[in-house]
């Protein structure tokens, strides 16, 4: 089937976006992922509209209610309430904002800086290249969570600092990726020709080299969002993420850990939210990769 598509594509040339969409559409999982991620995004953006309650309102006397579908539950609190009587569903819905925000912010910032450093390393070479690559090696040598925790310990735990810490941890993958593709691109004939023709290095990088790194970068970016969400949730779980009253999923888990035996639903749902979001972003990312990477598309 994949072969057929390739043939049709050749027969009627289409814009890159359209052909990308056609390839992406082939992957059922990816489409499902896209749909669910879109739903999560919509829910997060319009959280006040979807959430039955204010996520930080404490319903005194309704603490630790089980979900509505379990006996003892209350229909007003579909997924039950937490230790101080806040509606879990509302907290999860508002938590989606924070988790997605962290994921997107980390991806954008680290991709931006990573592209800059990667291009710089490839373009300038020499000592600059060595220094950048060595620093990236250093970051990679320390287990990411330990490094993130150390950074948070230095700059203090809050939402912004979580983003900073996770960004630093994920920087090397972008730098390495961009540098490698840029180096490969720079050695190609057309680039050498352009150089000879007197095209400026900076212009060369932006106009010729960067677009050619785009495909792997987008794939890396998509996976980067889900990894960042997981990493941030891990930090939250260790008590170093967003601070109250924010409803971050990892923090919700950490806060409810003591109820693992007495009120398991408080522990279950935030984790499920993380899993579903991350899983579908990854599904989508797989589809993106297959669609963008022609080599894989053929196989």
């Amino acid at each position: 089937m994949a072969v057929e598509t390739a043939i049709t594509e050749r027969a009627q040339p289409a814009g890159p976006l359209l052909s990308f969409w056609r390839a992406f559409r082939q992957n059922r999982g990816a489409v499902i992922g896209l749909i669910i991620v879109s739903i999560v995004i919509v829910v997060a953006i319009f959280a006040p509209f979807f959430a039955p309650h204010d996520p930080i309102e404490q319903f005194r006397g309704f603490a630790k209610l089980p979900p509505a579908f379990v006996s003892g539950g209350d229909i007003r609190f579909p997924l039950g309430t937490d230790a101080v009587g806040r509606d879990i569903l509302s907290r999860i819905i508002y938590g989606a904002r924070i988790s997605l925000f962290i994921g997107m912010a980390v991806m954008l910032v680290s991709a931006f800086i990573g592209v800059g450093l990667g291009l710089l390393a490839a373009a300038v070479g020499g000592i600059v290249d060595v220094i950048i690559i060595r620093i990236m090696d250093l970051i990679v040598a320390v287990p990411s969570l330990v490094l993130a925790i150390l950074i948070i310990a230095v700059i203090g735990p809050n939402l912004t600092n979580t983003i900073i810490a996770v960004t630093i941890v994920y920087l090397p993958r972008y730098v390495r990726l961009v540098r490698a593709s840029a180096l490969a691109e720079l050695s190609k004939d057309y680039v050498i020709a352009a150089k000879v023709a007197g095209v400026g290095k900076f212009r060369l990088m932006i106009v010729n080299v960067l677009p050619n790194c785009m495909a792997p970068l987008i794939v890396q970016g998509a996976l980067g969002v889900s990894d960042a969400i997981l990493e941030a949730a891990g930090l939250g779980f260790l008590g170093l993420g967003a601070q109250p009253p924010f409803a971050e999923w990892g923090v919700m888990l950490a806060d409810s850990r003591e109820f693992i035996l007495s009120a398991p639903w408080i522990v279950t749902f935030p984790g499920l939210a993380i899993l579903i979001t991350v899983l579908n972003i990854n599904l989508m990312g797989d589809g993106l990769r297959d669609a963008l990477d022609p080599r894989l598309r053929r196989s």
Partner: protein
Amino acid sequence: MKRSKLIVAALLGASLMASPVMAKSLVYCSEGSPENFNPQINTTGTSFDAARPIYNQLVEFAPGTVEVVPGLAEKWEVSPDGKTITFNLRKGVKFGATKYFTPTRDFNADDVLFSFNRQWKADHPYNKVSGGAYDYFNDMGMPDLLESIEKTDDYTVVMKLKEPNSPIIANLAMDFATILSAEYGDAMLAAGTPEKLDQEPVGTGAFSFVAYQKDAVIRFKAREDYWGGKQPIDDLVFAITPDASARYAKIKANECQVMIAPNPADLEVIKADPNVNLLEQAGLNIGYLALNAQKAPFDNVKVRQAINYAIDRDSILKEVYQGAGQKAKNLIPPTIWSYNDAITDYPFDPEKAKALLAEAGVTSLSSDLWYMPVQRPYNPNGKRMAEMMQADLAKVGITVELKSFEWGEYRKRLQAGEHQMGLLGWTGDNGDPDNFFFLLGCAGGTPAGQNISKWCNKEFDDLLMSARTLTDVKERSALYAKMQEISKAEAPQVTIAHSTVFEPIRKEVEGYKVSPLGRHEFTGVSVK
């Protein structure tokens, strides 16, 4: 649980039954690794608990009480002027032999001198070993108090003080006054490994040290030649289990017989467990919310009272303490003498709070509220408590921003008075009211002082000072009762709760007593 045991048992086969496993063991699920095994140099309850089976002090607290009883000193005598204490030491007390050291002589006065001089004299060969910080020795004012410690013969030690001090006997029952073996100390010094004294302990206690694996297990063996007689159990094991739910699961599976600090959320389940006895004891502590009286608008007593009315402490007791606590109206727990029960507490009354705020002319107040990042004996979950207060205060129109810092930093900043409202508390050491009030006077209210309400009231401070100089309990009681009245009316804190200490033990365990001082002791404990 049962099934896992069955599977294991089946896998083990019958041969196990014949092995020496049948020796009577008691496993205590502790919460963390000790810093080392010398109570002179460490400060945490976890470390004290881990060293206690091995050692004795001259005088000791009887298990489960704050009553002082003879230990290595058979008896002691205080001179009429209160400045000289003569200790008659117990004879025939042996140090426990271990695989790394075999003592050749009995306990005597040299060991006492060795133990105190190490902490006291800067030129003692051991003074600088293992960091050389003797926090409790210094905190209890020993360097300022001690004139001399001398032996008159092998079994008599005379301690001279610079001034009379009645609590010193109780202080000497604390862990920092532990008696180490001078002979072992000399041997380790000669061997060039003095730090072993603190890591591979030798003592006169009921158990001898066998092995320690960091973050995993500490093993002790009951001594046949203990001066107090062989213990009913043979092996004492500390299973280091930081997670409270995991500790309870181990109790259920009979992998532990005694555990520290159950998860408040699990108390209901534990109470219903037929195999477990849930022991409880009122804790010697207080948790409060301090209002910074030097910062507007908390300099206004009406605002401070309004906060007192606005906070729903019953809900906090229910959701934060999960019932394991009692509402506090005074700064001292009711188990302490001089507790003023006549005080009327502020009821939960948001309307009254709003009215008081209006009277004070305070509108749209926003404030910070600091919570500690760690669990404390008097506050099981600072964050949750702060979140609940935030919700309560929002209802009377106060916008609260929550703040927290790493624990050491947290206290430092509170002491510097950076906060407007902040959670803190206190755990008592010896049951004297002064032990609760001494930091809350005007001296503590200066920058870097421990009185984090920064509240200085002349009358309160004068009473505090004069109560300290009196000896008569009745007279002192009257003063402390008056102080409680003043602090309630002036409301520099919201007194929240005195927590209750719970300890689940297996039904098979006999003779275990919960200590009001938060100790975990295993002398006299047996397993059926």
